[in-house]
């Protein structure tokens, strides 16, 4: 996985609460292999009308925000289905940071496997950030994972917290399985112990 670096980009605001993973990537595209590139399916029914034409009012269709790397959402972003392709779609489109007041638990976990940083801000901070971005939508927002810090256009800044294990995974671009296999001896010992204790399993 590619290491996560400082992100400095305009931020696209999609202020929809409970934005579920079905809307992030509709189920009808999930038969595609990952190599097909899931960025093209991102927010499909929000980005495109029933006629297949782009909806010009949707933020990611605006020329200024087509290459945005930061997405600002609302509460319970990525709730619903466990489809990791929701994260692949965001990442494939170029998004590296999603900021929201809360996330669906599985989506949140999936982000860290793919170099996407989910940032949780309090509702008040999220509103402050969105207000700041609304005032100067073309000014980049800076997200610094190393310092756990966001700097917005109008000079507003926000700290955020993140579990150190997950932070390291992102910063170093570590492969989870590789990390876990370092514990192979513990897993072996656990299995042996468990087989004695719970022989019916």
């Amino acid at each position, binding site marked *: 996985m590619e290491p996560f670096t400082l992100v400095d980009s305009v931020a696209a605001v999609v*202020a*929809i*609460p*409970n934005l*579920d993973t*079905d*809307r992030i990537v*509709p*189920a*009808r595209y*999930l*038969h595609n*292999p*990952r190599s097909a590139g899931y960025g093209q399916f991102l927010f499909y*029914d929000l980005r495109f009308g*029933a006629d297949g034409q782009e909806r010009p009012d949707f933020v990611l269709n605006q020329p200024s925000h087509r290459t945005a790397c930061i997405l600002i959402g*609302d*509460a*319970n972003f990525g*709730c*619903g*289905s*466990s*489809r*990791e*392709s929701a*994260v692949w779609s965001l990442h494939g489109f170029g998004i590296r940071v999603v900021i929201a007041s*809360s*996330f*669906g*638990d*599985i989506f949140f*976990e*999936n982000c860290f*496997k*793919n170099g996407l940083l989910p940032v949780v801000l309090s509702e008040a901070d999220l509103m402050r950030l969105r207000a700041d971005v609304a005032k100067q939508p073309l000014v980049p927002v800076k997200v610094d994972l190393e310092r756990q810090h966001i700097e917005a256009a109008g000079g507003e800044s926000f700290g955020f917290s993140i*579990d*150190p*294990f*997950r932070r390291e995974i992102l910063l170093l671009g570590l*492969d*989870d*399985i590789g990390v*876990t*296999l370092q*514990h*192979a001896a*513990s*897993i072996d010992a*656990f*299995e042996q112990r*468990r087989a004695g204790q*719970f*022989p*019916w*399993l």
Partner: protein
Amino acid sequence: MNTASPTSLFEKIWQAHAVTQAPGGRTLLYVDRHLLHDGSFHAFDAIRAAGRTVRRPERCFAMPDHYIPTLPAQRSAPADKFRIKIETLTRNTSEHGIVHFGANDVRQGIVHVVGPEQGITLPGVTLVCGDSHTSTHGAMGALAFGIGASEVGHVLATQTVWQTMPRLMRMRIDGRLPAGVSAKDLSLAMIASIGAAGGTGHAIEYSGEAIRALDMEGRLTLCNMSIEAGARCGLIAPDDTTFEYLHGRPHAPTKAFWDQALAYWRTLRSDDDAVFDTEHVIDAGTLEPMITWGTSPQDAAPIGGVVPDPLQAQNAASRAGMEAALAYMGLKPGTPMASIQIDRVFIGSCTNSRLADLRAAAQVVKGRRARVPTFVAPGSGLVKEAAEAEGLDKVFLDAGIEWREPGCSMCVAMNGDIAEPGQRVASTSNRNFQGRQGAGVRTHLLSPAMAAAAAVTGVLTDHRKLI
């Protein structure tokens, strides 16, 4: 590692599976049971690309459910894009020596129906699957949660998964559900009460008199819907209802092992001094059949109620959300729920496709005719067989209702079972998200009996008036 004696059911199972801990509080949990389906191909692709193997194939169980056609004619000759997924699962499981209930196996069905039905899901085990409705299995007293594709690959390769201990919520359901009010209604009322994010970051343990009185199928329905409240897992302490359900199931322990297991399972409950981060109480006796009116499972109202008015919303954001939901659903505030006309009905999904669900629907349908296109997709081949043995298929067919083959079908709408744009569907499934059952489709979630009532009247109807 926390060495204090655990007091809650969740912590007891968690601690029994903790292999090691990482700085920052992450725990490496051992996985006893891993369910795989025809959408799991990404994970097999990933471990193959990394040159890894499956560590414990005997702990994995696979079956096609997401992509498999439910129309009998398509079942034997699926469209290419579905056939490839089904064949890929056959190939992946055979390559790695994983038990596979294939398309022609009577044991095939929706993973969350088949796990308990086969006794693969047992009290006290950890169970994962690359599907958010894995919360279902908590009904048997298992610690069960959905994971993403990378985690599926991780479990295949290591038989473990990194987790952060969630907060614990106790949802106590006092009293008894009135006649005609089901576990589905309870779950929708619960989600309406705490919100679709009310359980985020939590494991929910359901307790109380109404839970003890619920049959196994009702408990599975309730735990299934935990994810719709944002909780990754739901949990019910196993009791005699659980043990009677499990005894004699193909993968359940037998003889001396059964006795040994049973003695352990009886310790699996929260102690009186267990501490929960969040507590809620619901009085089951006050509940009515529930139906959703919006585009989140939290948007639910009793059948006797009306479509709510966004002007009554607590704040501007919530008002905007309601307005968008009503615009998508094509509904006006104040409309009685029991006057909404529907275009079609779906009875099935991991939420409501078990024998008890089909019986409840058949009881309403019996002697009547469906007024709108309706089909039933049983949860597994064995559910289908059992339903046919008691003539339920005939009740549906006589009413002009299609009787299909098992699979996820129009819940996730990935196998070609989709509705038309603008159609209004009464559905026993779990998600009324925009576009879930097809682009532009409007979904109303409800119980099997309520879905049957909608089918025979063409309008959302209190099924209790038909019995």
